[in-house]
């Protein structure tokens, strides 16, 4: 008798395996042959019809922890399995079944695209529509004590985030004469504060040229800003501008928005990147990404407050102009009031708000101003 050999086929292969038909939990001992005419593996069991697996359709289960046993399946049959326990049987399969390691085709690509888009859409809807809407409405309903508590908790977070080691909060500058000068500036600008509107002013020891407002009338100046302002009036203008934000409830809105958004982003990114989301949120608070309308309104508030206190609103224009000259175009600069493209308009507005024939009273004595600028010590 002659055998026609195909490929590396050995002489009439006789193997053994355990066949699981996937319908019941009864393993069947099977004799294995290669049916060259059908180009298939014949699985022969007592008292059962033989099963033929086309050689090119046989797949081996991937990622098995032990190699002493190999489990085979048929590409299109999700249930039936053939277990091979000897090295020889596995070797035959490796040689004869040419597509043993082919991966199944990817199913459900469309659904993936649809759900992927929906997930992004839902998160975007939350962050850009629903959370801002809720935050804007809830901000007005917060009582004064609640706003102050919110502001204080945010302030603590900001201090920790700004510190380079990220562990201790950034120190406050508390030179007594400097604080007295700040107090004087505050009383001059806002002489009749109701208890509801009471302000708290802090100076942070940080080189950033920045000032920001937090919920509950907490105004924060950075040391960098004190170094860049040349007259007390310039600082007073920034002060009044920040109070403008507080009165318009801008910081409360942003704080509520970020707490909502941080939770959603953390959910999407998982533990690993969740920390980054929180950091991003804190960053947004200091950057105080207000709309142009909010900035213009705060400016207008500042102009009026300055005029009421016999101070020239133009101080805001001089400060902005100098910062623009020093840092060039606003783009790419971290400082918040430089990041708005309408800086030219804001300078113009400050100038226009200053009547030509008005007379102004000085704000601080030279010694007081020096004390204020040196509030952080040497």
């Amino acid at each position, binding site marked *: 008798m002659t055998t026609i050999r195909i490929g590396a086929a050995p002489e009439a292969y006789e193997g053994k395996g355990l066949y699981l038909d996937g319908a019941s939990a009864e393993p069947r001992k099977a004799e294995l042959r290669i049916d060259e005419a059908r180009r298939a593996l014949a699985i022969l069991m007592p008292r059962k019809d033989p099963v033929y697996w086309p050689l090119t359709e046989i797949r081996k289960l991937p990622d098995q922890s032990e190699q002493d046993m190999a489990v085979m399946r048929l590409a299109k049959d999700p249930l039936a399995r053939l277990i091979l326990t000897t090295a020889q049987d596995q070797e035959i399969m490796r040689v004869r079944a040419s597509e043993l390691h082919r991966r199944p085709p990817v199913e459900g690509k469309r659904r993936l695209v649809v759900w992927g888009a929906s997930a992004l859409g839902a998160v975007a809807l939350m962050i850009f529509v629903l959370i801002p809407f809720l935050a804007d409405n809830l901000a007005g309903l917060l009582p004064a004590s609640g706003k102050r508590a919110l502001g204080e908790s945010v302030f603590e977070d900001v201090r920790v985030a700004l510190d380079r080691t990220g562990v201790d909060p950034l120190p406050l500058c508390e030179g007594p004469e400097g604080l007295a000068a700040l107090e004087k500036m505050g009383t001059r600008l806002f002489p009749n504060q109701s208890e509801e509107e009471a302000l708290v002013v802090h100076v942070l020891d940080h080189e950033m040229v920045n000032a920001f407002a937090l919920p509950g009338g907490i105004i924060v100046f950075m040391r960098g800003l004190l170094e860049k302002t040349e007259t007390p009036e310039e600082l007073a203008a920034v002060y009044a501008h920040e109070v403008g934000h507080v009165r318009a409830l801008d910081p409360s809105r942003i704080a509520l928005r970020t707490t*909502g958004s941080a939770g959603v982003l953390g959910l999407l990114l998982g533990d690993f990147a969740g920390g980054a989301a929180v950091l991003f949120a804190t960053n947004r608070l200091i950057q105080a990404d207000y709309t142009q309308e909010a900035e213009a309104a705060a400016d207008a508030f500042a102009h009026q407050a300055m005029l009421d206190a016999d101070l020239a609103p133009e101080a805001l224009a001089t400060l902005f102009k100098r910062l623009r000259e020093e840092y060039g175009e606003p783009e790419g600069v971290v400082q918040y009031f430089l990041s708005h493209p309408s800086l030219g308009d804001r300078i113009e507005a400050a100038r226009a708000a200053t009547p030509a024939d008005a007379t102004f009273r000085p704000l601080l004595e030279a010694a007081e101003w020096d004390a204020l600028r040196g509030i952080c010590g040497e």
Partner: protein
Amino acid sequence: MGLLTILTVGIYRFWARTRLRRWYWSALRPGGFPLEYTGTPLEKFLGFLVAVVILAFYIGVINLVLIFLSFSLLSAPGAAYLLTILGVIPLWFFAAYRAQRYLLARTRWMGLRFGLEPGAWGYALRACFHWFLTLLTLGIWHPRLRYALARYRHNRTFFGTQRMEQGGNRTMLYPAFVHVMIGGFLTLGAIYETAPELGPFFAALESEDFSSFEASSPSWRLFYIAIPWLIFGLVYYGVEGRKLLINTLSVGETGFDIRPRIGKVLWISISGNLARYGAVTALAMVASLLLIGGALTQGLTMEEVSEGDPETLFRAVTQDLPGWLSTAVVVVFYFLIFLMWNVLTHVFLTMPTWRHYAETLNLTGTPHLATIDQRARDESREAGGFAEALDVGAAI
């Protein structure tokens, strides 16, 4: 795999987890037949996306409203955080049950599917109730909780068409709990005895200055017995409890006989932890040696090096490099530690424990299995996505 996970901002974790599960499942061979995991990464990713869509609304709005209420009513954030966590707890148990259902629906043995009946809300309800009692009783209720939840899950579990059944009774886990009780009791006793000195002790710990602290109470020694006993008790409770639960479980006429050895499991957890902490410590030491060497070549004196904190040293070493490069070095180092930790945990802790359980497992009454038939496929569309989104801790 870990590397790919990091590089793809975590998306590869669905692929990594699928491969890991195939590997772990195949190592379990009850009666000589390996388990097979048939879940796909894509369905996991999809399920995660579905969960994100639903949870985004829940978490976003709830977070915001709770923060608002907490600040407007109590002027403090604490209550909001607490409420947010409390609000997520039932969801967490719900997600755990659903994840279990998905896992069983994608597990095969001898060609047949496993399955878990729906019942996630009932599970969440019972879990909340029992955990409440456990907290109230300082943990003494925990064996009751463990039994009740296992029973709830197991009695809803199917192998093919055959329903499983959890035998035993509500109090049967207490013998396994005895060492936790002794260890816990001793710890409480030690805390009570040394209570007047605990304040100064933690103050010294905080300031890292123990010079002024002196332990005068002889009861401090009690901690040397109490803490190891408690740790041993927890491991014992884990192993012995699992053994009791599995050995009273049955699939029709087929039963289980598992005999994990506590000594072996303790050894695995001690050696495994030594291996992973040791490796990370070694890596940190190599890094600090490099840092010190670098600082010295940068012209810093020995004195400056020993005085300087790591940040100053790092700054000194990388001063000539562009900023992005020094950031990249830190990021790579951080990922390296993360990666090594993961790999070592699998190789020295999870897999050996898993294998030990598998090796000591035998089946009784196996002829009955041949009469069990296949069950229909459970789509389980969200594929454990809620658990993934909520970080419900699954080892694999």
